[in-house]
């Protein structure tokens, strides 16, 4: 922990290194769910932490800097821009790897589920990933994404219904 003074308030900030050690793998899980291949998931995660490190004096002073990083990952993962760049990179790799497995570490059933999630509107995909991978409540998801719990609940219900249709499974919980 380091201390800084903001006005009359003493703010305790953990070191970036400690934050990184604690949060990297959980955030990577979120990125794996939201990105079509493992390489991109790692890329997105590392860039989010790099961004946090650059602003650590501010991000580290937040009550929950992990939420900041998760929001960066959630938004970047669904960005059209990034998706196009990802495709470009995948294209470059094709000569070297004929049919690259996007997530070799995951079973086919899991890949199918997250493909269905990624096909959803971006907010629904983010909500489902944060809810299931991170185990967040609707209130917590709302704090990460900057929206109300009611909005999260709506996205969750619609997203779950769409995934059920795509997978051909029952919708009710």
């Amino acid at each position: 922990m380091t201390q800084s003074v903001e006005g009359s308030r003493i703010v305790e900030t953990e070191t970036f290194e400690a934050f990184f050690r604690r949060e990297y793998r959980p955030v990577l899980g979120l990125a794996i769910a939201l990105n079509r291949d493992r390489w991109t998931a790692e890329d997105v995660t590392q860039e989010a932490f790099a961004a946090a490190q650059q602003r650590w004096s501010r991000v580290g002073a937040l009550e929950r800097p992990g939420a900041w990083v998760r929001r960066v990952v959630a938004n970047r993962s669904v960005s059209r821009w990034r998706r196009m760049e990802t495709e470009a990179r995948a294209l470059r790799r094709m000569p070297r790897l004929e049919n690259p497995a996007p997530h070799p570490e995951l079973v086919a059933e899991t890949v199918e589920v997250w493909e269905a999630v990624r096909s959803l509107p971006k907010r629904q995909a983010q909500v489902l990933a944060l809810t299931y991978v991170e185990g967040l409540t609707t209130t917590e998801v709302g704090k990460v994404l900057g929206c109300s719990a009611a909005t999260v609940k709506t996205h969750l219900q619609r997203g779950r219904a769409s995934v059920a249709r795509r997978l051909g499974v029952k919708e009710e919980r």
Partner: protein
Amino acid sequence: MTNVDNRLQRAASDVREAADRAPLPPSNMATVQPQQRQVPGWVAAATSALVVLVAVGGVAWLLGGDTPETAEPAVTTVPQPVTSIASESATSTTEVAPTTIPAPAALVSGEWVAFGADAGLPGTPTDTIAVDDSGGVWVLAHTDDPTTAQLYSLDIGNRTFVARGEPLVLTAEWYTLWMEATPTGVAVAIEEYDASAVLTQRLWQWDDAGWHDLTTEHDLPRVDPSIAQRLPDGGLRVAGYTAGAGPMIIDITDDGVAYVLAPEGAWGGGRPSPFTVRAAVIPVGPDGRSWFMDGIESIAALDAGGYEVYTADADCCYVPLAADETGIWASLGSHLYRYDVDGWRAVTSSVPMATDDPRSIVATADGDIWLLGRSGVARFDPDNIDGVARDGWTVFTISEAEAVGVPLVSLQTSVLNEGDAVWLASWGNGLSLWLHDGHKWAEINVPDFLNQEDTGFMQNTVTARNGSLWVATSTGVARFKPAP
């Protein structure tokens, strides 16, 4: 029948386990910082070694303890938008007191101006910007309704942005692929996600009569409008792949709208490219033809005169990369090829490893080609192939670039301005500018309002003929005008 909740729970568990097994990245993942920024000692000290880190209680902070007091990103200070805006015409010399953001470490001085709610924009995220031949600036912005878009243009007389026509009412949440000026307004390619999560791409045109669905109005085949490029006569060419079919180009000119479709059966051996990337389509090549990937093994050129396929060697594939005034550049495996009046030839033995994973490729008018990758930037000078190290490539790796203060981490895009300078935009590390005349890098200080990482701070960039760089942001637009 399996419950969807069970499927999601199992899939989530699988993902968490995969993440838990993941090795932690090298400690220098965030090594390259602009030099004026402070780098924590542990990062600077561990430039080559891996730091063995232990994952501890990954989601503990989320599942236990108190509710986060705030999950908001760091607060950034957004300069007040100016109420007066200088003309963007190429000949303009008038400038009106903008909000000046100091750039203490910049090698190139200039001024950033933010345009938000006080300058006529709604203060919502802008998706894209276009600059027309007269210097007019067009902006397509989101509104409070996620299914509605509003077009704005810069009113030079009143020095503010004004809404143009009625909002474009769409069927679902939307994003733009691109927006470009046409002879009568703008054309924009929009993606929509309907309630069934079906993605629809539509091509819209705006003129003084309002919005038109180009595909419906002109009875065009449905196309994934990958990219658009201005034609020399002021028109616009749209290039993309039709659904389940081959390449297609659409020309929007003063004469109207016309399209050319690759002949059925001529393309890709029945295997159209699964990709819709800008790097794989060149709308206007040096001979006027459009260049596409054809399947995964060939490259092809299309115009009204026909469709010509160039098939690569076995087990390889061409990827069209960029065009200059006399030819096009393409990759073949890890090699770089060029096609011009003399046909195809290999021009270098290998693409530098520093840019083995290029994210952006541009060809400048002086004949250089630039590859911008995660781990560096490489410039290829075809006039210096012989006798120059690395087959004509000048490579700026991270460590080399660091010495001159260039933030190369996470390069994402690049644009050329009329002066043929290369702007490099990177997530979280701001903008850089390559100045050809001095052969030096210049770092442009990034104001806080472009650093809102939670929203993806730079949505889109475009350069105007007078050298200004326009950036679409999460709250409006911003302009950087280099000092003379």
